[in-house]
């Protein structure tokens, strides 16, 4: 009666049928094995530079120059790190990077969500033009604005100061785009209801809109922090004394000229630049990935 093929104990068709079924199951398992192997090997190769950087940072100059190369540090040393902390002012570089990043993140969170709200939920003349301008500047290369910005900053007497490092990045187009897209999705009814109840726009924004913006704000905070921490060209131009170097600038300037051969120092420096962001990434990786997906796809 039933059409469901039941395994029979005997009969001519039995072997080939089970074989077919088994191989159908086996083939994906085999290809899955191949995929896993490739993924693991690829991952090892991808992460190898980080391992090499970490191992190298504990080697002496002599060992780094020694051929053939060594894998594990033969006489592990902390010299490379102590040089960053004593001879080079690592504390100052770190402070600069942190101060700049924190202020830039806060600025973006506040300013971009404000303009994002206006663009998403209010009507005003010039709205379309403003949004189009924001979108168009998403692809402006950094070197295009570099020179006028430098002329401006130097005329304001701000070269080699925190404001020069911070102000240009206090609010960026990506943040505006991100916040606008998210706030568009907040139901109009909610906002209308608050307005009818007599709430002003500032109240609506701070009480109704902002509390719902947790996910995009987290994403924006991470994207902006990442951008600021890894930013290079502008700090390279406006930070002119060691007291204003951010970490990547310090690292790059110690990697050229006569310092360029002190690979241990450079490896330790790379570890010091990369570790904070990697730790943050491991804890908040969901938001990092979300950030790329959101800023990339929408």
């Amino acid at each position: 009666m039933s059409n469901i093929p039941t395994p029979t104990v005997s009969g001519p068709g039995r072997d080939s049928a089970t074989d077919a079924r088994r191989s159908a199951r086996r083939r994906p398992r085999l290809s899955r094995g191949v995929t896993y192997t490739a993924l693991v090997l690829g991952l090892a190769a991808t992460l190898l530079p980080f391992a090499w950087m970490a191992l190298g940072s504990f080697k002496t100059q002599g060992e780094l120059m020694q051929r053939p190369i060594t894998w594990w540090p033969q006489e592990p040393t902390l010299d490379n790190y102590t040089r960053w902390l004593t001879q080079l002012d690592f504390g100052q570089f770190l402070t600069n990077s942190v101060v700049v990043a924190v202020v830039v993140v806060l600025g973006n969170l506040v300013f971009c969500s404000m303009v994002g709200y206006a663009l998403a939920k209010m009507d005003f003349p010039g709205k379309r033009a403003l949004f189009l301008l924001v979108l168009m500047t998403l692809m402006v290369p950094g070197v295009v604005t570099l020179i006028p910005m430098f002329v401006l900053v130097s005329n304001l007497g701000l070269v080699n100061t925190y404001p020069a490092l911070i102000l240009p990045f206090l609010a960026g187009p990506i943040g505006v785009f991100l916040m606008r897209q998210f706030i568009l999705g907040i139901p109009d009814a909610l906002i209308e209801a608050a307005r009818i109840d007599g709430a002003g726009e500032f109240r609506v924004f701070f009480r109704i809109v902002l509390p719902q913006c947790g996910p995009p704000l987290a994403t924006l905070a991470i994207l902006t922090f990442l951008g600021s921490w890894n930013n290079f060209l502008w700090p390279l131009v406006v930070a002119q004394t060691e007291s204003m170097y951010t970490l990547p600038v310090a690292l790059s300037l110690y990697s050229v000229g006569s310092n360029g051969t002190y690979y241990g120092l450079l490896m330790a420096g790379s570890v010091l630049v990369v570790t904070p962001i990697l730790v943050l990434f491991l804890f908040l990786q969901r938001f990092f990935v979300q950030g790329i997906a959101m800023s990339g796809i929408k």
Partner: protein
Amino acid sequence: MAVLSPRGRRRQSVGAAHRRKQAIVAWLFALPFVAVFAVFMLGPLLASFAMSFTDFTIRDIRDPFAVNIVGLDNFIGVFSDELFRKSLLNTFYFVLVGIPLTMVLGLALAVALNSGIERFRAVFRVGYYTPVVTSIVAVAVVWRFILQDSGLLNTVLGWFGISGPDWLNDPTWAMPSIIAMAAWRNMGTLMIIFLAGLQAIPSEVYEAAEMDGAGPWRRFTMMTVPLMRPTLLLGAVLLSVGFLQVFEEPFVMTSGGPLNSTLSISYFVYNQFGYGAYSFASAGAYVLFALIAALSAVQFRLLRSKDV
């Protein structure tokens, strides 16, 4: 109705007043952003454009308006500058090889992670994404060390009997080395974007194709790639905007050398800026901007015409 009733007129003027009030409030909300945007983005963007038609140099920094208009001289100048032409070619080389390579790696990772791999998927995603979040300067320093004449890469190649070149000091190999590093650093971004694209394809489509006897390769070329077109194009746009601006990698790894083989457009502009040739540098920067804008326009047109 020709004449509005008094009531109607009043209602209209209340509406107008309300609209005006909302417009003011809206601009107040936009103000902090607009201020930063105007001073540090729009202003410099226009200033740099204007500057490229003048003879502005570092000497004019305190008095930007005391300059002469020189028309297209700077643009003619950059295009007749051998170094600039070299930097154009180098940048095209970087983009034309780097983008397909990064796209293939990103797509391969996305397809692999989407092919019924459940266990450790998060581990792979995080692991392959790691290079994306790290500072270019820091990883470029490390790669410089790896690519040394008798460094890690050549040691590993030596196991297979290959004697590798002195990667970064060989004019033939310096750019490929930088491209490889850029692909390594950016494939994670594409992996994430492509993974989202793949997951948007309904599984019934694949099941139907499988029933019709399409093998994995056929399913990939005949279905995955066409269905992913918008996502693939988006990845290409994002990547090309970034890759055309390449600067940090050659700055840290090769200083533009050897023999200017890794001098990029951004690097050329940065150097001219360093020499104080501000208007000349601005012309170079605007050529780069025009390239990026043109490429994005083409890619977005492709995106719009065939899909959506």
